[in-house]
Each structure stands twice: as structure tokens, then as C-alpha cells.
């Protein structure tokens, strides 16, 4: 890596970042903790140390202009349920620090390089707190939006107490040249059930990094679903740390880079307790010069007997110039487990097109229907019919 692309703590931009930290909310994060997190950001290597033949994103050079941080941060929350607490992060830190602390920082999200960056600049975001045994039927909608050429660090914390149930939809948008580095942490206590879906529709030229981690309790459920459809760069991780038996995790990701978009996604399920199950489904397509990398981690600890882990990953390559790398990584330490991994990489099937053509549908329309169909099993796992229709419309737009 050329030295000029490596930002060290001595550069003026880095100095600017440290100065900017001092102006952020001291209650959400103490100034010392922020500095320590930013130190770690600079010290840690990015997960993608090597730039490859098809991959020229240099994660070390994409830190934002310090002056733009939080200058164009738009945030709103819609919830019709008065029992559910939905608060701005600064208000939550002041009014309900104990509840917030049960979830914020509980997933170890700040351990990685960009998790540390999100942690350093965590100042605005949302805390959702669902009390025990309460079922929130209407999805809560969180909107984050970054204005053009600004940087935001949205931090979302969800605490679902014992037996609670909630569905949350995050809509993440950004104007051109914006930088987003967000974190979402979810703690589902015993028997709780949380579904969290993200639709990312950032504009061209923006860069979006999102770290998302959940820790389900005993017999608790967590469902992640993310659709990364915008941005010049969309990177991040969906993670579940299973530490209690009986937990059920479902991870769904779909993405579709086209033009010059890059996607870099990691899914990670850590089975640290036995008798728990996880199921990961990833559907991706790429066209034009779109590039994507997906790394699917499943780790089953030696004592996690009775784990059931599934990973399904399908790639549709729509142009010869598009490229998707898909790498499963299963580490299985226990012997009495079920672990399944299946992957396909393909193009639009000529026989399928012919069949549809034989019913009067022209080849281009047939190709679009087939590609939309390819995504459909993943789309169906998103909550709310409106969100699903919106994702289908976005995908159709990318196919035309």
C-alpha cells in the first residue's frame, strides 16, 4: 500500500478528527473513551488489507472531512406504540443511562476498525427500548439521512426485554459525496423477538459503512435483513453472537452493485452456545462494472454442541465486466452439529428465458423477471408489504 494513502495520527486530517471529537456529546460517550476509540481506529488494520485485482477500495483513505461531521444529519423515528420507548441517543443517555448501558456496547461492535470509528463519533442516533412481554405490532421506522458532502455516524441501540417483540425498519439515505459510518446493536433478552430490516438507498458517490451486531438471549429470536442498494461504496457486517441456548438467528442480505458501485459485506454468526440455530441467506447480483465481495462466517465453538447453522449464498452475474467474490468461512469446533453451506454463481439461464419467451414475453423482460425472481426469496424475508414492494421496485429499476 502506498504510504500516501495511509492516514496516520500525525496528518492534519487526523488532527482535525481528534479536535472534532472534543465537541461531541460527553454523556453519550466520555471524551476519553472517544479518543481511545479513535486511537484504535487508526491502529487497527481494516479487514480488507489487500487490494486485489478487482478491488481497489482503500479503506484507510476514506475517513471524512472532520468539519463536515454531523453538519447534515437528519433523523426521525415513527412509532405509534406509546409503550415502546424511542429516544434520541443524547436523551436516552441522560434519562435512561442504565437501560441504555444494557445494550450499548454489549455486542462488542467497537472491536473492529470501523466499529471503533462509529464508537468514537457516536453522538446521535436512536435508542429503542421495548419493555418485558410487550408485543409491538406496527413496525417502528427509523430514518437516517446525510446531506451532500457531510459525514454522519448514526448509532442505533435496541433493547428488547424478556418476552418482548418488535419489528424495526431502518431507512438509510445519503446525498452525493456523503460519508456514513453507522452502528446498530441489538440485545434481545430471553424469549424476546426482534426483527430489524434496513433499506439503504444512498445516492451516487456516497459511501456507507454499517456495522450491525445482535446478541440474543435464551430462546430469543433475532432476524436481520439488509438491502444495500445505493452508494458508491456499501460496506459492513451483519453479526449475531449466540451465547445462550435456544436462540434462533436469521440473517438476510441482498445487494446489487451496478455502474461503479462496490459492495463489501460480511455476515458472521458466532455459535458460542449449543442447541441454537442460525440461517443466513445472501442474494446478490452485479452488472456493468459493479463489484461485490461477500464473506460468510460461521463459527461454532467446541462446546456449542447441537448447533444448527445454515448459510446459503447465491450470486447472479449480469455483465461480463461485473465481479462478485463470495467466500464462505465455516469453522466448526464441535462434532455434534448440523452445518450446511450452499453457494451458486451464475448468469441468467437461457432455458428459462426461452420458456418465458414461448409465452410471449420478450427476452429483455424475461431476463428482468428472472433476475427479480432470483432475489425474491430474500425479499420475502423483509417485514412489511410496503417495504418489500419498495425493494422490488428498486431492484427493477437497477435491472432496466
Amino acid at each position, binding site marked *: 500500500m502506498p504510504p500516501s494513502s495511509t492516514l496516520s495520527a500525525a496528518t492534519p486530517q487526523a488532527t482535525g478528527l481528534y479536535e472534532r471529537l472534543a465537541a461531541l456529546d460527553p454523556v453519550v460517550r466520555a471524551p476519553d473513551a472517544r479518543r481511545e476509540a479513535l486511537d484504535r481506529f487508526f491502529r487497527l488494520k481494516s479487514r480488507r488489507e489487500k487490494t486485489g485485482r478487482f478491488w481497489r477500495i482503500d479503506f484507510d483513505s476514506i475517513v471524512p472531512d472532520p468539519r463536515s461531521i454531523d453538519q447534515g444529519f437528519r433523523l426521525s423515528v415513527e412509532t405509534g406504540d406509546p409503550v415502546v420507548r424511542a429516544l434520541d441517543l443524547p436523551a436516552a443517555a441522560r434519562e435512561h443511562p442504565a437501560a441504555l448501558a444494557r445494550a450499548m456496547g454489549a455486542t462488542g461492535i467497537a472491536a473492529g476498525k470501523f466499529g471503533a470509528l462509529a464508537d468514537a463519533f457516536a453522538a446521535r442516533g436512536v435508542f429503542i427500548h421495548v419493555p418485558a412481554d410487550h408485543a409491538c405490532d406496527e413496525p417502528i421506522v427509523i430514518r437516517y439521512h446525510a446531506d451532500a458532502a457531510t459525514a454522519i455516524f448514526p448509532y442505533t441501540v435496541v433493547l428488547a426485554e424478556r418476552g418482548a417483540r418488535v419489528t424495526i425498519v431502518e431507512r438509510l439515505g445519503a446525498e452525493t459525496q456523503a460519508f456514513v459510518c453507522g452502528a446498530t446493536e441489538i440485545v434481545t433478552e430471553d424469549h424476546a423477538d426482534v426483527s430489524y430490516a434496513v433499506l439503504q438507498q444512498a445516492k451516487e458517490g456516497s459511501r456507507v459503512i454499517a456495522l450491525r451486531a445482535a446478541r440474543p438471549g435464551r430462546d430469543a429470536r433475532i432476524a436481520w435483513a439488509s438491502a444495500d442498494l445505493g452508494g458508491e461504496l456499501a460496506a459492513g457486517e451483519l453479526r449475531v453472537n449466540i451465547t445462550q441456548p435456544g436462540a434462533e438467528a436469521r440473517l438476510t442480505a441482498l445487494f446489487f452493485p451496478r455502474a461503479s458501485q462496490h459492495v463489501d459485506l460480511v455476515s458472521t454468526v458466532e455459535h458460542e452456545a449449543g442447541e441454537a440455530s442460525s440461517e443466513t441467506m445472501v442474494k446478490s447480483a452485479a452488472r456493468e462494472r459493479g463489484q461485490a465481495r461477500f464473506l460468510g462466517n460461521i463459527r461454532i465453538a467446541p462446546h456449542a454442541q447441537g448447533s444448527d447453522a445454515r448459510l446459503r449464498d447465491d450470486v447472479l452475474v449480469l455483465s461480463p465486466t461485473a465481479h462478485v467474490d463470495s467466500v464462505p468461512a465455516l469453522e466448526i469446533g464441535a462434532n455434534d452439529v448440523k452445518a450446511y453451506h450452499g453457494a451458486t454463481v451464475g448468469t441468467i*439461464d*437461457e*432455458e*428459462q428465458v*426461452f*420458456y*418465458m*419467451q*414461448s*409465452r*410471449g*414475453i*420478450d*427476452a429483455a*423482460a*424475461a431476463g428482468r*423477471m*428472472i433476475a*427479480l*425472481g*432470483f*432475489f*425474491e*426469496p430474500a425479499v420475502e424475508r423483509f417485514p412489511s408489504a410496503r417495504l418489500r414492494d419498495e425493494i422490488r421496485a428498486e431492484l427493477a429499476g437497477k435491472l432496466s
Partner: protein
Amino acid sequence: MPEHGLRIANLRCRVAGNEILKGIDLTVEPGRVHALMGPNGSGKSTLALSLTGHPQYEVTGSVELDGEDILSLPPDKRARAGLFLSFQYPAAIPGVKVANFLHAARQAEKPGDMPPAKFRALLLEKMDQLGIDPSFMGRYLNDGFSGGERKRLEMLQLAVLAPKYAIMDETDSGLDIDALKDVGSCIAALRASSEGRDMGLLIITHYPRILQYVVPDVVHVMIDGRIVETGGHELAHRIEREGYDRLREEAGASTPLTPSAAV
């Protein structure tokens, strides 16, 4: 005044370099039922797929549909001209729901001719006729369908698209007797309707069983890429009694092609 009918003249087809069809002449008139019989590997399915426009087949000769040359058209335009193939092996398309597909196909072939509510009513009526559970509408197209379910769905498409000419490629194979009766009554109902009265049918089969339910006006026998005999429906009964061996000898045919070369 163009001549009506699906008129096939001197049709030859090569698949992966092998000549499978060696000059087929056959005309299906409006409202008439033709049966095409022949042993495995004789080229029957190749004829069906050639007419439909399979992208990997090299086809020469001429095919006119009511006077329009369709051989130079892509498969979708052939379908819009009024040609339908009930596939022997219909493709599975995961993620595409049966209801959406049927609607897209009807819109493509007969744009705007039927309001959605009426189309839905038509679907329900035809599904009932074919013994198809309404839950099929929400399933992915042919995905995880049994052989019989696929064939019933092909018939449902035939019924809702009401083409001018339909080729049924071994629709009977893999169907039990009840399913076969359902298919037979569906075709009878379609042919009795105003939309389907003039439909010409080419039924490809190697068993005469289906012909009890849809009685052919003309029976052709294909061996080794050629039509070697044409007659009335009694020809089907003769084949049932005698098999294809005598016809094969009379035709002087070489050893039958392997099925894999003829698919």
C-alpha cells in the same frame, strides 16, 4: 388471401451438428387435431422446440402461421402470433410467482384485452377445471412441482392464453388417469369455447392413451426425423397393436437415435 393453418414445409433441424429433422412437411388446419407419434428419439420434441424457436437449434425450411412466416421471428413473437408449446420439461423459475407469470404472459400475448378481475375469474375457473389448487398461484413457477403438477400448469397456460395453434409435447407422460381426464376435459372445454373453437392442435405422444380424450383428425408417424406415415385416427390403434417396428422397417430407417441426441 393467406392460407390458414400452421404450415410446415421441408423443415430441417440440426442440434449440436447432428441433423435431427430431415425435411418435415405438415399442416395443422384451424380447429383440427393432429397427432404426431413415434418412438423415443425420432425427433418429435425437436420439431416442437424448432417450431417454438429454441435458441440453440439450426433450423431451415419454412413455417407459416396463417400466412405469416414465423421461422425468422424470436420465440416471443411466434407466441404473440398465436403459437403455443406445452413443454415436455417446463423450466422452473424460482422467485417468479405463477399468478404474476400468467398475467405477464396474457398481457404480452393479448395486451389489455381483459380487465384484471375478469382474468382472475378466468384463472379460477380453469384451475377448477384442471384440478389445480388455488394456492398454486402464490408458488414459484414450476419450482418444486411434481411432473404432473407441471403438466397441469402447462394446460392452465394453454387455457388462459387460448392460442391459435398449440403443440402439446408429451403432455400425457407422467400423468395418472385422473390427471389425463382433467387435461382432456380442459381441452374439450377450450375447443367448445368461442376463443378456442378454431384452435389447431398438434399432439405429440408415443402412447395412444391421450388420444382417447382428444380424438385426432389426422395421425402422423415420425421415425428418424421423417414423417413416414399419415392416416386417420385408426393409425393410432394400429400402432398400439403393432408397435413401431414394422413402420420402421418399411421406412428403412437406420438404428434409432439415442434419446440424448434428439432432445
